[in-house]
């Protein structure tokens, strides 16, 4: 039964009813505090997405700046030497064609050309020598202090207009820097960054305040594994915890709040990002590039449909060309059922009322709703073979370990700084370690150690594969290669 409290309290409702109630409250309660709605486990209802042009969206994704502050181009050249792009990315135009894929040029009102970070920094990654748009980069290093790099870049900034642009950018990054760092390679601080940005903005005007306007998020930054974009078209909620419902664009462009200082600017980004969202919905996963034992995969499909489909859906024989058979249930699975590390879901609910209200009140929540849940969404599994490490926090290095909890290393590290695929275990090659990071003297060595004993980094739960026989597990792994 739904639990409902009045006034400023928290409402817990079945997920399917949450949106309707939320809308009713918003319509009926003009001028009142927005309701804080916490979803109950179960199916997340669909929501109509605005129509966009995928082709225009791709062009915009590759060439338009969503973060509108950055380093003056002249200083970028002086600091980095303007290295040539490492990967071929068709569709990059003008100056962007000369920049690494993570960077996009933007001309500020001052006329200064800026180099800004774009979505692809996290949401694209190399795979077998090619850049895959939509593949989360699980090798990013957020252990570096952005303040040192960004302030230090000032040594190469010349000119008053350039200095002013650099200062704005550096000030923003300094304000969120404590929430923009993790101490483990691959652990992404996105959740904490977004909360920190919200705390510095007026939800109504989006004006930036150097002093935080509400409590800043906890100092302890939780790790996030970057989810693949090619599942967005199926997902009814953007985030792992079922948060980000309704129209997805507002939730997606929350990332741009680093420098989006007015509703007018947000509205402009929202307009072209509707096309980007339409493009993202057309993305498909990369095909498994190595041989697949078809007979074994067929056995695995039976195991999958028996054990996995209730939450993860049904993909049909070899997924791709069998759309009619595909069904994805958008299930938010309760924490006590999935059993995976609860910290991320709890952070978005416990004491998070101010952030939820901020979102609902802001331009970003105009067409969408936060509605976090105390659980995690069982994701669509297309291209799952490419998305190691697994679980929302990236704590399990391979699918083999995900399906056998006794095989999950307590401490592990990537085997090398470059992704190297392990075709037997389905994941990036890694090494299990017997001790945590303390065994290494230098921070440079420590940062490679994923320590699952730390808060938020746990690798427990999702032990549904433990009951499988070895033969079933082997067959299931083979099937997952086909998705």
């Amino acid at each position, binding site marked *: 039964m739904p639990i409902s409290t009045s006034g400023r309290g928290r409402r817990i409702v079945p997920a399917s009813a949450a949106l309707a109630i939320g809308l009713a409250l918003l319509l009926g309660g003009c001028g009142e505090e927005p309701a804080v709605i916490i979803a109950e486990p179960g199916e997340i209802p669909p929501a109509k997405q605005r129509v966009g042009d995928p082709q225009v969206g791709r062009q915009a994704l590759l060439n338009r700046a969503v973060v509108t502050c950055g380093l003056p181009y002249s200083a970028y050249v002086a600091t*980095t030497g303007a290295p040539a792009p490492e990967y071929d990315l068709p569709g990059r135009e003008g100056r962007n064609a000369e920049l690494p894929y993570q960077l996009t040029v933007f001309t500020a009102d001052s006329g200064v050309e800026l180099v800004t970070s774009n979505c692809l920094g996290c949401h694209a990654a190399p795979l077998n020598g090619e850049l895959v748009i939509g593949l989360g980069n699980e090798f990013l290093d957020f252990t570096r202090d952005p303040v040192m790099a960004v302030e230090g870049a000032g040594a190469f900034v010349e000119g008053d207009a350039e200095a002013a642009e650099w200062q704005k950018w550096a000030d923003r990054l300094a304000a969120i820097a404590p929430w923009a760092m993790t101490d483990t390679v691959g652990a992404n601080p996105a959740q904490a960054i977004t909360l920190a940005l919200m705390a510095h903005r007026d939800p109504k005007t989006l004006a930036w305040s150097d002093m935080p306007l509400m409590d800043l998020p906890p100092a302890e930054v939780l790790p996030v594994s970057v989810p693949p974009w090619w599942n967005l078209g199926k997902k009814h909620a953007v985030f792992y915890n079922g948060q980000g419902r309704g129209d997805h664009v507002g939730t997606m462009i929350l990332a741009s709040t680093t420098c989006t200082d007015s509703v007018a600017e947000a509205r402009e980004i929202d307009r072209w990002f509707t096309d980007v969202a339409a493009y993202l919905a057309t993305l498909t996963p990369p095909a498994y590039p190595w041989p697949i034992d078809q007979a074994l995969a067929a056995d695995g499909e039976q195991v999958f449909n028996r054990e996995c489909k209730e939450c993860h859906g049904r993909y049909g024989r070899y997924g791709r060309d069998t759309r009619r058979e595909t069904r994805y249930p958008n299930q938010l699975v309760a924490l006590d059922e999935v059993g995976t590390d609860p910290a991320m879901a709890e952070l978005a609910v416990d004491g998070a009322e101010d952030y939820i209200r901020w979102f609902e009140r802001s331009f970003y929540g105009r067409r969408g709703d936060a509605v976090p849940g105390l659980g995690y969404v069982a994701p669509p599994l297309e291209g799952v073979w490419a998305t190691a490490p697994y679980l929302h926090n990236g704590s399990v290095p391979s699918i083999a370990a995900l399906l056998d909890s006794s095989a999950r290393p307590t401490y592990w590290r990537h085997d090398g700084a470059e992704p190297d695929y392990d075709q037997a275990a389905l994941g990036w090659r890694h090494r299990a370690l017997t001790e945590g990071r303390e065994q290494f003297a230098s921070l440079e060595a420590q940062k490679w150690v994923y320590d699952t004993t730390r808060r938020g980094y746990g690798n427990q739960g999702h032990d549904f594969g433990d009951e499988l026989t070895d033969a079933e597990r082997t067959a299931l792994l083979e099937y997952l290669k086909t998705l």
Partner: protein
Amino acid sequence: MSVGGAVVLAVPLMRRLLPWLALALLALSAWWLWPSGGGVPRSALDPVAVAAALPALDAADGFAVLAPAGPDWLPLPEDLGPHPDQRTELWDLSGQLRDAAGEPVGFRLTLVRVGLRAAVERPATLAADAVLFGRFALVPKRAPPIQSERASRMAAGLAGAGAAPPAVWLEDWRLALPARGTDGRLRVAAGGVELDLTLRAVKDPIAPAAALLGAAPRAAGGEDDGPGFRWFAAPRLAASGQLLRGGQALPVSGTAWLDRAWGGVAALGAGGFGASRGQLALNRFLLQLDDGSELLCIQFRRRRGGGTPVPTCVAGAPDGGTRVLRRRELTLEPTAGAWRSPASGAVYPLNWRLAAPALGLDLTLAALTPAQELTLGEPVWSGAVTAQGERDGQAVRGGGRMELGGYAAPTGG
């Protein structure tokens, strides 16, 4: 929740920044003496020597070009001596002494060799292949500092540098460098005072730039180790001897630090950091503590104020090991007490707090005496400081020197 945003740009930035920071850590120590980018040392230096030195600076010159040093670079024993195939090099010795009464005395001798042409065929001692610039400072606590500059062509015995034993001399200023198992000696006379010290190496040399690079992010896809120069330091020399003034000998003893560096002019002079660069200004701190440890720190901050000052330190342990400490591991900030220079009008913070919780260290730094400003180019405060505080609850003290840049009002807009 959503994208990591602008933070990702930090990765390519760091690749080039750290090597330059390593250079700044060195170059600031003597930037005012490098003949860099037209900024000639403006003082009572030998005008003939300066005129002879400068026209050739930008020309193709036949000097050897050094590849950038990687994090694994280590000096050789003969690197104490001169490198005539290199355009510029530096011997920079500074230390803190105490007299019999325990009164502190700071000193520093900086010698910069600037090659005029590569000394390949002719012995350097017979022709004016190079000019040696020098500056000496002696800073007693209770008397005005003595400061003196000079320059001479490295010819006819006026000035020179030798390899065996390693030594460098500029007229009657002589520095014999201490090698493993062999004591060195410093003899300098200026302003009616003579300093005569025996120098003994207590620790093996360290390479601060290499330490900084070794601790730097090593991203895939190529690295930039920065400009070609070499730099090592003898981080702890035991110094003892006497100070002669008016025929009276005053016994003194203490510790000293020697910086040795060489490379191209572009690397060490015009291309490096001065006391400020772009939007940044730099401060540098070199400390030797009486528990056998050292700290070499740089702090950069916005020249026009605001922002987050960023300190970085290379810490030397009593056993000779080094460790890099970064912003989040350090507190380095001015405390009350600023001094306005009557010469330049610059207002310098002469009292600082340096804390490194990871080392259990909390220090207060104070200028030995305020009047140690240098106005040879852009004004900097460059002088002797004392340090006191505690490490893990135990009292610790020491001294060293501090360079403060970018505190003068900007001129010419």
